[in-house]
């Protein structure tokens, strides 16, 4: 299914009846693209400016005055290194759980018939409609009952095996020919062996898209981490960033004003960098992942 979607984006359906786009179209698209990219460029370039320049002349940027002062100040002020390590840990473990358990369950739903399957699948689909919002308060209380507030398991376990990814993987695996699985069975592979050695390699593009999108979502996740964690040693990157932002808006006047802005932009830039780099490298997988989201509609 993933390959199907790729071909859908790469190969436009209509060609003959469409006129060649004129300069106006390019101008509109170009301006729009500029609007989308400019804030990112502005944030990154400003983060390299001396703090006073950010305030005095927000438009200018010359390489001559580039400095890493804002980054140094930020590293001194907030535990951004700790935030990075925590985020990487959560992305790795939670992402690995999603990428293993969701295809496994998807495989069962796509290729087996078993009593209770429809009921189980119905429950799965119902949970798709459950907004995270309703769970935040009771989940937080559950964490404190378990003594899990400020722990990695609190950050990792809720949502680690999600209904949407299972549904997506079920659709992907349904397209794998049964003959392939039967061939594995003839060769004496176990049921799990068929999954691990036949299904997983065959659906690699789908797994890649799932992995990229999952990693992005976990990296950018904010609501649950900010609720579940309040001590510095377990904060994820996004929570560290928000703490910094609140210090600024809470205390807007004073001589340090420009300095804190510099830190803010440095923090934002450094948080964007990994995911933007990943996006540029793996954009096809990102787009396939985003599109898979619309298939369920």
């Amino acid at each position, binding site marked *: 299914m993933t390959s199907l979607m790729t071909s*859908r984006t790469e*190969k*436009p*359906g209509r*060609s*003959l*009846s469409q006129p060649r*786009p004129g300069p106006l179209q390019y101008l*509109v*698209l170009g301006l729009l*693209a500029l609007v*989308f990219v400019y*804030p*990112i460029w*502005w944030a990154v370039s*400003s983060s390299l400016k001396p703090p006073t320049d950010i305030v005095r002349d*927000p438009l200018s940027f010359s390489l001559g005055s580039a400095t890493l002062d804002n980054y140094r100040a930020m590293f001194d002020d907030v535990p951004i290194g700790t935030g990075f390590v925590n985020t990487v840990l959560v992305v790795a473990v939670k992402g690995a759980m999603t990428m293993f*358990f969701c295809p*496994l*369950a998807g495989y*069962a739903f796509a290729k*087996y*018939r*078993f009593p209770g*399957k429809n009921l189980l699948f119905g429950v*799965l689909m119902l*949970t798709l409609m*459950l*907004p*995270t*919002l*309703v*769970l*935040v*308060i*009771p989940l937080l*209380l*559950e964490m404190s009952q378990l003594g899990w507030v400020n722990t990695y398991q609190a950050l990792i*376990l809720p949502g680690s095996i999600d209904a949407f990814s299972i549904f997506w993987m079920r659709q992907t695996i349904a397209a794998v020919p049964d003959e392939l699985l*039967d061939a594995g069975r*003839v060769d004496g592979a176990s*049921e799990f062996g068929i999954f691990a050695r036949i299904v997983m390699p065959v659906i690699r593009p789908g797994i890649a898209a799932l992995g990229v999108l999952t990693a*992005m979502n976990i990296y*950018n996740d*904010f*609501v649950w981490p*900010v609720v579940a964690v309040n001590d510095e040693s377990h904060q994820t990157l*996004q929570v560290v*960033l*928000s703490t910094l*932002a609140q210090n600024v808006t809470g205390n807007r006047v004073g001589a340090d004003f420009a300095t804190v802005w510099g830190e803010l932009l440095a923090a934002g*830039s450094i948080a964007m960098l990994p995911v*933007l780099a*990943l*996006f540029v490298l793996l*954009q096809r997988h990102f*787009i396939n992942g985003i*599109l898979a989201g*619309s298939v369920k*509609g």
Partner: protein
Amino acid sequence: MTSGTLTPPRKERAAPDAPRPARRSRRKPFLAPYLFVAPFYVVFAAFGLYPLVFALQLSFTDWKGAGEANFIGLENYTYLLTSEEFWSSLGNSAVMWLLIVPLQIVGGLAAAVLLANAKLRLRGMFRVAFIAPFVTPLVAMAQVWIVAFDTDYGLVNHLFNSVGLPDVDWLQSTVWAKPTLALLFLWKTTGFAIIILLAGLQAVPGDVYEAAALDGASRKRQFWSLTLPLVRRSIAFLVVVQTLAVFQMFAEPFVVTQGGPYGSTTTGGLYLYNHILASDLGTGAANSFLLVLLVFALSLLSVRLLRSRDE
């Protein structure tokens, strides 16, 4: 075919089978599929179902996070439904919705139509530019917004001044704070809308257009009678997803405005979070159920509205 009788005996194999069963699904049920789906249901029971039941129970109590929890019936619900703050949080979200969703659908569709042209050069580059904001962390961009929309030293007012326009109190005025946050949301997610709509457009077979063109349908007519009905599903999907997102909006006001000025950016999501901060957990639970009900109703309504058109 009759896999049951022809199966050669094998020892300790959870999945014995005929050499070539015609259909996988004819196979006898085994333990394997249950083991494969079990992890999800364990995680869901622990971190989905249990908290959900707990929240429902909590919403009928006056629990403050410590001490006794007294059953107070529907009091939390009636309190919220008669409280000005609750309605103002919904009102704020509704205004945000109006500022965001129509503009995003119309603008996104326009961009998608331009991008769908097969003769367009640099399509990949445009696409990357449009989705780049979608992949950036929201918190990081929210910080950029604080700096860029500052009244005295921000980038936007700097630009305004340079063309002779006066300063605007973007984040300190009850009028402008909502549009400023809506702009952040639009900037962040319109690329997503464009991609979804583009996929919808490109799923439309080309010969449909050629046939229409042969029949003498104008380009305008083709758009209204062919393109729009065919991407309706994508539009419906976007409306539902964005309605859910706008009414639950939390990180934008939390980071940029903390709900101010004067509560003008306290969205449904942020108001709910304020109950947690105040340890007013019973009310908070009731609030989340009311919000969820509303979001469901709105989603159903938008799907219904979009479906009833020419079908």
